[in-house]
């Protein structure tokens, strides 16, 4: 508002409106009282129209304006009596100008009030129409123009800024679309080894710097992508930099490790089916990076396979390892075939060189594949770390440990352990053996546990395993009698070739990889458990153990292990229970009655006397399967309870 142009301003003071005439006697003639609209205008100037762009000025000036008015009035009142020289010759002019400004402000405010129809509607006032018009319209037009102008400049500024912004955004997009070759190269340089040979830029994707000894050169060439029309819309993944990798490293590859069974008795191994799909490009990774990583993976797989096949040829084993093109076949256990194959699919076409056992791709042992990768990297690391810097610095280079061997007087065994390092193939075969043995042991235990309900088998697998060893605790119990029947507890240490069983009684048994051995052993232990349980139960029930044998020499011969037996007598010695339990023949329970209670005692001429009544009577077999009770021990407890006379 204050930015109004240099306008011709009428100097005519506004005070005319108030004081028309001051007579000599001091009486003043006032203009007639303000009309309704004038009054309103006056009031309106007190209102703070905060939405107006210049409301601040308004508010700031509102107050002084009022005071000015008052002051002026008083001045005018006394002006004639004693003339007060103003401080400044143009003071009155200034005052008038200011009041003119004030007027305009008011007008503007009124106008804005009027324009916003919701506050009030303006009606023409009958009184002095021309004056009103001139007072209202002229400033309005003037204000409008000035407003328009300033708005226009502001709009222009904004437009300029917007244009700048859009331009820079467009530029950015343009930039992204057609990347700068050099910046790409810089990025490539930060992640890959590059060197300049002649006019070519060559890179190294081999693992040589990480300790690999694989002879593949692993070189890639950096090419500038120029065959693109910059005017046309470029594809999303366009990159000015391209890499050319050796043709034999193209595509994707993986090492497939699987165990095939020649006999169907072996459970499934590695049935997880994870089908490989090409890795989704992560957002923000450059296409060349993906390409190089894939090529590096191919190279690593090739190195692993080359190492394995070299070892397969070198190692002498009873059943020689067979290397056929891209497959190594080994026989860890009789009837079992471990095959390691290099699957390399090049480009778009279907994998043509994959292993022959394509129809069942689910026997891939991912754990072993992973371990192979891990082992080759360990091998690399070993290569690097074996050539550590000597300390003190004057000492010659050499193997760190071997340098210690002399002054620390290592003996032969220690020196051997420094030098020998098992090959990749040996390790992986050992791991495969262990994995196989472990999963089959688990399966054997589980199938026994599900097949046989009484006694129960529980297996507690250790929470920490090694690649070559894992252990499981096997508990054989009877339901409801866990506390007293815990004589059969075994720890199975599953190794590479065999399973070592530590029995609770201190025996150590070594089982071979044959499944039948473990199963037979567990079955015989379960059979023994029942007899042990009777023995324990007898203690609890107050019965006396007359005889106990883990391995009975009498009766039918068991095909697995031996039958065991126990004989217990009731607390008062009247009754006796004999139990014989065999892993195959099952259990047989006999009860011996006191002679006095049996009716059909065979009459004998010899034992007529009453004292012979204390002799034991005949045995009767209990029809065990018709006994009440949920399991063997429960039945036995019931039987003992029944045969224990009430005191």
């Amino acid at each position, binding site marked *: 508002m204050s930015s109004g142009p240099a306008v011709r301003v009428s100097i005519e003071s506004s005070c005319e409106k108030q004081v028309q005439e001051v007579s000599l006697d001091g009486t003043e003639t006032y203009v007639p009282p303000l009309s309704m609209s004038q009054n309103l205008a006056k009031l309106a100037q007190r209102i703070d129209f905060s939405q107006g762009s210049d409301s601040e000025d308004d508010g700031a000036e509102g107050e002084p304006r009022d005071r000015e008015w008052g002051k002026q009035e008083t001045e005018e009142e006394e002006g004639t009596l004693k003339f007060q020289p103003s401080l400044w010759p143009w003071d009155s002019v200034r005052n008038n100008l200011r009041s003119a400004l004030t007027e305009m402000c008011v007008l503007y405010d009124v106008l804005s009030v009027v324009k916003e129809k919701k506050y009030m509607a303006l009606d023409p006032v009958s009184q002095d129409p021309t004056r009103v018009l001139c007072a209202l319209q002229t400033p309005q037009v003037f204000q409008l123009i000035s407003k328009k102008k300033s708005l226009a400049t502001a709009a222009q500024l904004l437009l300029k800024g917007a244009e700048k912004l859009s331009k820079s955004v467009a530029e950015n997009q343009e930039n992204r679309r057609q990347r700068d070759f050099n910046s790409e190269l810089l990025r490539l340089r930060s992640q890959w080894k590059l060197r300049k040979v002649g006019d070519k830029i060559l890179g190294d994707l081999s693992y040589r710097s990480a300790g690999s000894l694989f002879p593949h050169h692993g070189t890639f060439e950096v090419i500038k992508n120029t065959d693109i029309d910059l005017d046309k819309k470029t594809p999303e993944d366009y990159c000015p930099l391209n890499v050319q990798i050796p043709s034999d490293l193209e595509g994707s590859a993986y090492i497939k490790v699987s165990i095939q069974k020649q006999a169907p008795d072996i459970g499934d191994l590695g049935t997880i089916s994870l089908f490989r799909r090409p890795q989704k490009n992560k957002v923000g990774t450059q296409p060349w990076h993906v390409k190089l990583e894939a090529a590096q993976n191919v190279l690593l797989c090739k190195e692993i396979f080359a190492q394995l096949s070299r070892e397969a040829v070198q190692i002498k084993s009873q059943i020689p390892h067979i290397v056929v093109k891209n497959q190594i076949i080994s026989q860890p256990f009789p009837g079992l075939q471990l095959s390691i194959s290099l699957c390399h699919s090049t480009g778009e076409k279907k994998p043509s060189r994959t292993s022959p056992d394509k129809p069942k791709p689910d026997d891939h042992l991912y754990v072993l594949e992973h371990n192979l990768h891990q082992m080759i990297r360990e091998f690399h690391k070993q290569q690097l770390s074996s050539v550590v810097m000597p300390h003190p610095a004057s000492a010659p280079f050499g193997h760190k*440990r*071997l*340098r210690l*061997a*002399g*002054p*620390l*007087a*290592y*003996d*032969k*065994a*220690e*020196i051997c*352990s*420094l030098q020998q390092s098992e090959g990749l193939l040996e390790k992986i075969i050992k791991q495969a053996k262990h994995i196989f043995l472990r999963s089959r042991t688990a399966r054997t235990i589980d199938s026994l546990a599900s097949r046989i309900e009484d006694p129960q088998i529980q297996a507690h697998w250790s929470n920490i395993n090694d690649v070559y060893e894992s252990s499981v605790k096997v508990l054989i119990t009877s339901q409801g009698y866990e506390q007293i029947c815990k004589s059969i507890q075994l720890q199975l240490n599953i190794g590479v070739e065999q399973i070592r069983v530590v029995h609770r009684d201190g025996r150590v048994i070594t089982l071979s990889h044959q499944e039948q051995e473990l199963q037979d052993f567990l079955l015989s232990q379960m059979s023994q458990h029942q007899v042990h349980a009777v023995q324990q139960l007898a203690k609890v029930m107050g019965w006396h153990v007359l005889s106990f044998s883990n391995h009975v020499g009498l009766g039918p011969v068991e095909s697995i292990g031996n039958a065991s037996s126990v004989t217990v007598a009731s607390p008062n010695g009247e009754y006796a229970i004999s139990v014989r339990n065999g892993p195959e023949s099952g259990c047989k329970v006999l009860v011996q009655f006191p002679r006095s209670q049996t009716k059909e005692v065979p009459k004998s001429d010899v034992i007529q006397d009453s004292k012979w009544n204390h002799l034991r009577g005949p045995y009767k077999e209990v029809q065990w399967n018709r006994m009440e009770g949920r399991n063997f021990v429960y039945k036995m407890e019931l039987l003992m309870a029944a045969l224990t006379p009430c005191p």
Partner: protein
Amino acid sequence: MGVATDTETVCHVPVAEGKSVQQTVDIVHKKLEQLGAVKHGSFCVDCETYHATGNASGQPSKLLYVMHNSETPLSCMALFEGGPCLIADANFDVLMVKLKSHFQNAKGHKVECRGSRYRYCDFLIKVGTVTMSSSARGISVEVEYCPCIVPGDCWNLMKEFMLSFLGTNVPELPSVFAAKPEGLFAPADCVDTMTQYLELFNKLRKLQISGSNVR
């Protein structure tokens, strides 16, 4: 990796009456095999003697012994009698060649002890013939009980073991161990072994000097 420290003792077995050295060794071998010990390669301990040539101070110089043990094939032990000892790698021998103007090898003093190693559970037994200037002088038996590192702890056990194949010739606890405060077979165990061998060699040498009619 630590160093295998264990308890071992070296003793001298007198040659049986009316038998040659080789025959006596065979008898011991047979006894060991009867016990169940398994032959496990061979071993060799040798000892060279050096003495300083020019001694500035004039005082009688001590003898320097440089020994090797096939049990620690990469090491070379250098000992002064009753003095400090050094364990070094095989290059020490080369250094001794360089030093030959200052330390002279006593040619006739080379002692060697060769024989077989036997393993019986955790015991390692080495029966060897001691040779001085290419003539057999005596028999040494080294018994090592690998799992135990405190000689005093397992001495009874070793004695019982040695009784079973040496008969009455069981030695007393070697002075090397008795002198140690803790009785611990220190990390420098190979030095202790070498000291025992050195004592044995010196004993045999003295026997040779005092009475050359050992056999």
